[in-house]
């Protein structure tokens, strides 16, 4: 499904951390295409490898981590083949990133203006004065009132939401083609969350960039994404457009995630959970990684790892239930039968 309309194509990305106990495969064969001008969400619980995937795209994996294999094509060029110097020209310029913690992502000793100017000076070689006036423009763009005064302020004088806006201003200062937002709203309260997401979406439309939105919040995904990749234990288990994903989730894990959301249309005393935990990196099951927690798991699931298969509607799912080799109940409907299967 890769074509010219994709700004980024991740193929079979493998990123591992080499620790004393051996190799930890944080990202294990992730393939993902980011279409131009669209927002792709990556969801998954902690440790599923979503942040490591994005850090791999930026080539910011630090020791003892290493990108072991695969390719990341950005406009036809493999980022994994670039030198560090070439990557520095891409980071913050063509591909930008927003981090989770706006409170700590700004250097406390420099003013907002200095920090926005810095990225402009690095990539566009503007003079200090021009960079500063561009900084004012950027602050205006991200909706910060009285930007002329704000550029002279220091990070500790701004609230969390303001700082995240500043981070966005910094990230967008050089008109990147791709913005990676790593849980940009997790540290913010709900009303500010909505504002920041709206802002990102609005800027995506007006600047025509693509966005990778990493989150564990399905509500955020439903609101903002065009496509969604669900990750589990270092692998993509389902990739679908956002409507299909919420209407017809296919992978039992996705269904489990949806089920565990609190519903306001049902009277619930307890939230549904997915039993068990993500397998520890050293103890990955041989077959499907979700099999130990999956209410539908059959023999083939525990023994063989399924591929990411294309379904009839053009989406992808990594589950034996949708293959011809499925040896469990042939009539199973994951979405409808999840609760009954779980209680058995």
């Amino acid at each position, binding site marked *: 499904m890769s074509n010219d309309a994709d700004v980024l194509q991740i193929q079979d990305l493998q990123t591992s951390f080499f620790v004393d106990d051996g190799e930890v495969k944080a990202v294990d064969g992730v393939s993902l295409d980011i279409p131009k001008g669209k927002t792709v969400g990556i969801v998954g619980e902690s440790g599923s490898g979503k942040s490591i995937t994005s850090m791999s795209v930026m080539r910011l994996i630090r020791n003892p981590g290493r990108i072991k294999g695969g390719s990341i094509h950005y406009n036809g060029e493999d980022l994994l083949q670039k030198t560090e110097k070439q990557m520095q020209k891409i*980071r913050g310029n063509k591909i930008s990133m927003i981090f*989770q913690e706006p*409170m700590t992502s700004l250097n406390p000793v420099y003013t907002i203006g200095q920090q926005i100017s810095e990225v402009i000076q690095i990539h566009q070689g503007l003079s200090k004065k021009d960079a500063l006036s561009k900084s004012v423009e950027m602050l205006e763009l991200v909706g910060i009132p009285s930007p002329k005064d704000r550029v002279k302020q220091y990070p500790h004088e701004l609230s969390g939401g303001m700082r995240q806006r500043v981070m966005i201003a910094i990230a967008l200062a050089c008109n990147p083609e791709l913005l990676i937002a790593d849980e940009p709203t997790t540290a913010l309260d709900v009303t500010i969350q909505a504002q920041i997401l709206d802002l990102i979406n609005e800027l995506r439309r007006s600047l025509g960039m693509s966005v990778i939105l990493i989150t564990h919040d399905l509500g955020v995904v439903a609101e903002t994404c065009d496509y969604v990749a669900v990750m589990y234990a270092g692998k993509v288990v389902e990739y679908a457009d956002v409507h299909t994903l919420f209407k017809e989730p296919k992978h039992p894990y996705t269904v489990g995630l949806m089920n565990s959301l609190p519903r306001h249309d049902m009277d619930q005393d307890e939230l549904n959970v997915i039993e068990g935990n993500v397998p520890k990196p050293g103890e990955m099951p041989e077959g499907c990684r979700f099999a130990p927690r999956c209410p539908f798991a059959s023999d083939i699931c525990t023994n063989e790892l399924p591929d990411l298969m294309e379904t009839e509607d053009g989406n992808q799912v990594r589950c034996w239930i949708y293959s011809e080799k499925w040896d469990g109940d042939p009539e199973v409907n994951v979405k409808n039968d999840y609760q009954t299967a779980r209680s058995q």
Partner: protein
Amino acid sequence: MAETTIKEPAAKKPANPHIENAKNIFKRLKKNKAAMAGGILILFFILVAVIGPYFVPYTAAEQNVLNKLQGPSAEHWFGTDQLGRDIFSRIVHGMSITLYIGFFSVFIAAIFGVIIGIVAGYYGGKIDTILMRLMDVLLAFPGILLALAVVTILGASLNNVILAVAVFSVPAFARIVRGSTLAVKELEYIDAVRALGAGDSRIIFRHILPNVFSPIIVQATLRIATAILTAAGLSFLGLGAQPPKPEWGAMLSDGRNYIFEAGHVALFPGLAIVIVVLAFNIFGDGLRDALDPKMKS
């Protein structure tokens, strides 16, 4: 960093946190009476070093052998030495030498130590191991012994003393800066600037260095005391400043021979060393408490 108050943007000129911070530090420093006394003494010493020589009645080398080994009097406040030189004038003249050694050797040590520490902490791995083991080797020697070795190799002179003292002060800076760098480089804003395309040197010098500055300042103040003491020790052994330079350690050494018949010859230079070293030490301690309130407990 805990406070997140937003000030009215237009109404008030944004406060510069460097100035605010300096004000806070000064406030905390003022509460520490001993440290303030140390600080005022240091300022006084600097003043004496700069203008003192113009006010004292004698030059450092002016001899009057007929008047040798005189006790303190109205004419010679601290008495005279074995060549009849006025000890008070010599101590005032020697002040600039002492401070010069202290400041300059620590300055050199800080530059090298900071670079080594920041590079070791930032890059980690093999570079860290090599640099820090080298520092450990230097630390394994007692400071004065290392300085002795350096001066013996290079020859006895004031500048070589400075160099020797600098060499053994480098590891102290390297270690403290490496520690702070390790902490700062894990902070999210360092990742953030890297994600913006900043190179290593920009990250090190523009983003890490300003954030590891306060331990450097504290260390420098405390190290000046050590440097002065070591330099005096070297001069005492005849390996530092050469006669007739009024270096305090050398004066102490002169007085050693007359310690029973004219104790004041050794007493006053010794007292001068004690007071200067004490001033730097208590000021450094107070500065540490003021710069890092968390460390106090």
